[in-house]
């Protein structure tokens, strides 16, 4: 390393630690660091100051849905790696939301136009979704219901489109004219996905899926893409 090289890089230490170098400049600086103990020492001397900067930030609470959607992806990928089926999820309490009657009527009318069939199997029961083929052409979904629905169900989908960044699918449970939110989920590149519905479905009327913002919504923002009537 020449002293000229060192002189030209010495002032890069601060910019390097603050992330203010371009990619090319950073790579050049790191090559220089490898052969310059003086600059390495300077980087290590100033690193604690740069590391303190994020700790000056006012703490804001992340939305609870962020962890939920993150863990859905992580758990699904862990299962795929190990080749084990989805575990049954604990039931969780979800806020019950009033859903406007006129909108429910609209949803019901819209669903009347959907193409779908329902089949029933013995233990566990499987219901096939009615799919809005105009909006999700080629998609299909089956709801596998455990123990008469008391312990929830697993909705498996295929032929779904991967959504853009920041958007997720969300399941919903309809019961006595109310629609309550169920977990959000994503589908893989092969268009397949699955989501565990932790609610007691024994007295539910339907399970639905919509597209929502990452983190989930408290009420559906669109007509369902698919509906499983129970």
């Amino acid at each position, binding site marked *: 390393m020449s002293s000229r090289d060192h002189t030209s890089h010495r002032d890069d230490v601060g910019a390097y630690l603050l992330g203010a170098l371009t990619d090319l400049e950073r790579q050049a600086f790191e090559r220089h660091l490898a052969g310059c103990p003086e600059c390495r020492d300077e980087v290590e001397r100033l690193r604690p100051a740069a590391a303190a900067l994020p700790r000056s930030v006012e703490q804001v609470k992340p939305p609870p849905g962020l962890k939920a959607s993150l*863990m859905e992806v992580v758990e699904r990928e862990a299962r795929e790696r190990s080749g084990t089926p989805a575990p049954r999820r604990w039931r969780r309490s979800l806020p019950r939301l009033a859903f406007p009657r006129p909108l429910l009527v609209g949803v019901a009318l819209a669903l009347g136009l959907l193409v779908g069939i329902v089949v029933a199997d013995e233990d566990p029961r499987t219901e096939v979704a009615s799919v809005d083929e105009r909006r999700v052409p080629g998609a299909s979904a089956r709801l596998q219901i455990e123990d008469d629905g008391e312990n929830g169900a697993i909705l498996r989908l295929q032929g779904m489109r991967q959504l853009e960044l920041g958007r997720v699918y969300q399941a919903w449970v309809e019961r006595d004219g109310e629609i309550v939110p169920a977990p959000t989920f994503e589908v893989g590149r092969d268009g397949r996905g699955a989501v565990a519905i932790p609610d007691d479905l024994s007295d539910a009327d339907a399970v639905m899926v919509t597209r929502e913002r990452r983190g989930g919504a408290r009420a559906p923002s669109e007509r369902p893409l698919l509906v499983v009537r129970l």
Partner: protein
Amino acid sequence: MVVATDIRNLADEEVMQLVGEGDPRAFELLYDRHGGAAFSLAYRMVGNRVTAEDITQEGFLSIWRSRLRYDASRGSVRTWVLGIVHNRAVDTLRRGAVHERRRETMEGVEESHEAPERTDVEAIRREEARSVRSALDALPDDQRRTIELAYFGGFSHSQIAELLDEPIGTVKGRMRLGLDKLRRQLSEGFAAGGFA
């Protein structure tokens, strides 16, 4: 291999070892410990919750998917996680994606609220934040502004030079001098290594 009856008793470094082995529960614990700080940093940088959520999620998924290796010689796990999220936020800012999102949604500031102080750890972190802010405020204005534009604004040194109408060498010098002063201020207030 890490063996423990209660994963929550593990140190961050041991948790990282389990994350590297593909353990979702260890990953969840990593998020529980550092997700709030990561989201807060992303939110401070990009100014809206939707983009901050995306950045935090992408940062944590990159740790999970690529089994990124934690290098203890570069500081604590918290510093490492925040560094990953910071890099993602800088990429987002430089792509200009945030400005697009800001046009789409004006939410953010009005939704912001401080996380409640539930534990002693959070209270200590809040105090730590106040101290670092005080140390930053004590810097000469030109140094503080340069550091904030670089670190939180995601601007490169040449962009800052243009914004402030100053030579690049001056901007780089302010960054180095500012960090040096900040280090000295912090070392007066905290035990050595407290921020590493």
